């Protein structure tokens, strides 16, 4: 007897049809300028545009300026991460349930909001208060990362064994001392590795944050591109790529050294 064929589920074809509809609807509704791409002179003008980038600007004065922006980007990422550690730790205390369930729920919602708004949007908003320049970018990195780190820190603190702190408290230690000497040291290694990971992310983010006017390499890139100084822009893009490559290599080496 022939075995009956396996039951076919209707769900998967429907899902695929839905995805196809989404893609078709996207292309139809976007009114993309395909004409500009398939025009006979499009290839020529694209080549001309690309040729404008070569050779990258290499006058010593400009290189010094780029190095300055590179340094500014690094400084933004470091100070931003530091702010985030302070803010994240302050928010993680209520978010780990130390001040009751209501405070925990409320802080967790706040952390979620801080986290789900990207750095770049924070930067655009903070420009209103802090003005153009790296300070707005630093604050933006700090605010977004505080949301990320706050949640990770809170989880780390919640997962720590509570007995050492309880023992200190039972023997009359002050609450702060008990926290600092019993709970924090247990969570510290994990918190440090989260912080390093976020710093790595923040260097990458700081490099592009400037395109809304918040300092660093991004601001320089935006400036030179808007003046159509392509050769200067090429130098800035190369500096960005170098920065990202160095960060990647350093983090790879560090990880290997730590896990060996």
């Amino acid at each position, binding site marked *: 007897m022939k075995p009956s064929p396996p039951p076919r589920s209707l769900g998967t074809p429907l899902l695929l049809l839905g995805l196809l509809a989404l893609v078709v609807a*996207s292309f139809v509704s976007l009114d993309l300028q395909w004409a500009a791409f398939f025009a006979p002179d499009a290839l020529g003008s694209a080549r001309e*545009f690309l040729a404008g980038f070569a050779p990258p600007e290499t006058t010593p004065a400009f290189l010094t300026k780029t190095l300055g922006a590179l340094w*500014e980007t690094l400084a933004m990422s470091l100070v931003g991460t530091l702010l985030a550690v302070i803010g994240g730790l302050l928010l993680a205390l209520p978010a780990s349930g130390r001040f009751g369930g209501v405070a925990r729920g409320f802080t967790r919602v706040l952390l979620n909001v801080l986290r789900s708004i990207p750095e770049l949007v924070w930067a655009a908003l903070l420009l209103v208060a802090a003005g153009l320049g790296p300070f707005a970018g630093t604050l933006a990195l700090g605010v977004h990362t505080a949301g990320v780190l706050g949640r990770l820190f809170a989880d780390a603190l919640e997962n720590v064994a509570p007995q050492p702190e309880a023992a200190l408290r039972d023997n009359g230690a002050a609450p702060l001392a008990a926290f600092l000497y019993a709970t924090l040291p247990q969570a510290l290694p994990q918190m440090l590795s989260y912080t390093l990971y976020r710093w790595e992310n923040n260097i990458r983010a700081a490099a592009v944050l400037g395109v809304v006017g918040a300092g660093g390499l991004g601001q320089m890139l935006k400036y030179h591109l808007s003046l159509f100084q392509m050769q200067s822009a090429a130098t800035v*893009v190369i500096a960005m790529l170098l920065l990202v490559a160095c960060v990647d290599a350093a983090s790879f080496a560090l990880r290997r050294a730590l896990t060996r």
Partner: protein
Amino acid sequence: MALARHPDPAWRGRVTATVVCLLLLWPMLVASEFKPWLLLDAQSLAAAGGFLSDFLRPAHDAEFLAMIARDTWQTVAIASAGLTLALLGAIPATFVITEQLSLSRLGTGRMRVSSRIVRQLLRWVLVFLRSVPELVWALLFVRIVGLGPTAGVLAIALAYSGMLAKVYAEILESSDAHALDSLLANGSPRLAALMYGGLPESSAELVSYTVYRWECAIRGSAVMGFVGAGGLGQRMDESTKMMAGGEVATMLMMFVLLVALADIVSKLLRRRLG
């Protein structure tokens, strides 16, 4: 009995470390123009105060909401169209760079020099495509094709084809090669070997990574609007520059909702397909 004081036995080291860190931090604070008191001067307080008080009254007239809905759809559409184009680039690239599909590797375990060179060259192109941040691609394309969604679609297509091809190849190379090897060794063409030997093994992982990237693309396309590449971000940029706090508040809510929704849909899809 009075409580005896127990000073921290390690205080000297701790204080020294703190002072050294602060000294090292100083040039960083200067370079990032860290001047918190600027936030408290009258002018910026007034600007921020006006902006923030507008936040409490989110704009919600029908016309504005309809516009926001259109922009939100545009953001999703840019992400979907960009990812589709990225797949058009990533799938052929995966086909070329996957080492398990190499014929000269069969038996000897060593690839021909020429095929090794081709693979390495294409890999470098892909590294370049994904190393340039998507926002920078968007900025460049805005210069070429002008303001609007076309720049966003192209930026996502380029940056994501680099990422997708790399990860696809890694997934294929880390799966069990036995079926693929026997097919190739028995003379199957490479495409058929990939379809029948490689894909069944790792299709779930490939699909779930693609869906995850779609979610990232939605977040990315919303942000790319800030450099003029269309969608919700572009509108938010305009409203922020006009200091229309109410409009920005509505858009921020929409943005958070969109990201949360993409997260949920992507989790559901991955569970269903993965």
